[in-house]
């Protein structure tokens, strides 16, 4: 939907315009799922040509104090497990620590604890995952309530695959929580 910006005093607002604005904000909800004791969470068909860029929110705690990570998917649930993931970032506990890495099999998402009352939250923007011929890039930050561990990571893929989905999984154990995907509405 193109954004209209030429309203003037006395302009009649058709119901269709009002409805469009009510249902088509800048950030458009795509999907969300809540999981419990999962070894991994596949968000299938969440990336398409409808949007270029996406916002991913995760809220997680787990059976072990460890990290969650992402792999991008094609098809229904084919994970890209190859070493195409790059990371430039830092984490903070009592000091800032570099945790850059090349040729990884995963993107980092967040650290988490084992306390249900202190979920770990992450917020990640993923740029153009479904556009073929370009690298997919992400920018994310997270906070683990158990430990006050904060992370910030710029990540990208060296591949130029058009991905259609996202896989969230812990480095070990299982996770409980929610993942939500939004799309940035295009003009």
């Amino acid at each position, binding site marked *: 939907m193109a954004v209209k910006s030429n309203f003037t005093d006395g302009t009649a607002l058709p119901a269709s315009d009002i409805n469009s604005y009510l249902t088509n904000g800048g950030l458009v909800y795509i999907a969300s*799922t809540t999981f419990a004791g999962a070894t991994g969470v596949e968000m299938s068909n969440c990336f398409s040509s409808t949007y270029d860029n996406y916002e991913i929110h995760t809220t997680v705690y787990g059976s072990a104090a460890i990290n969650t990570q992402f792999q991008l998917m094609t098809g229904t649930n084919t994970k890209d497990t190859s070493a195409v993931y790059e990371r430039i970032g830092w984490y903070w506990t009592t000091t800032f620590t570099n*945790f850059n890495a090349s040729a990884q*099999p995963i993107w980092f998402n967040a*650290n988490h604890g084992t306390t249900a009352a202190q979920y770990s939250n992450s917020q990640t923007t993923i740029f153009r995952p479904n556009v073929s011929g370009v690298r997919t890039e992400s920018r994310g930050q997270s906070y683990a309530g158990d430990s006050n561990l904060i992370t910030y990571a710029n990540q990208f893929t060296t591949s130029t695959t058009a991905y259609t989905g996202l896989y969230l999984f812990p480095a070990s154990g299982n996770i409980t929580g929610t993942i939500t995907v939004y799309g940035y509405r295009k003009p």
Partner: protein
Amino acid sequence: MSDPKPTIHHHDCLTGETTLREITQEEYDELIAAANKSTIDLSQYPPAEQTPDE
């Protein structure tokens, strides 16, 4: 694999359908491989207890 069996939570964003299935051996092997290959170093986790500044 220990009990309860590792479960993959699959959500189709187009249909809204959620299905649960047992992880396959191949997926389990890939998961372990990813964990072993990744070089995330969060050695300070959990952090040492901090003393408030005087």
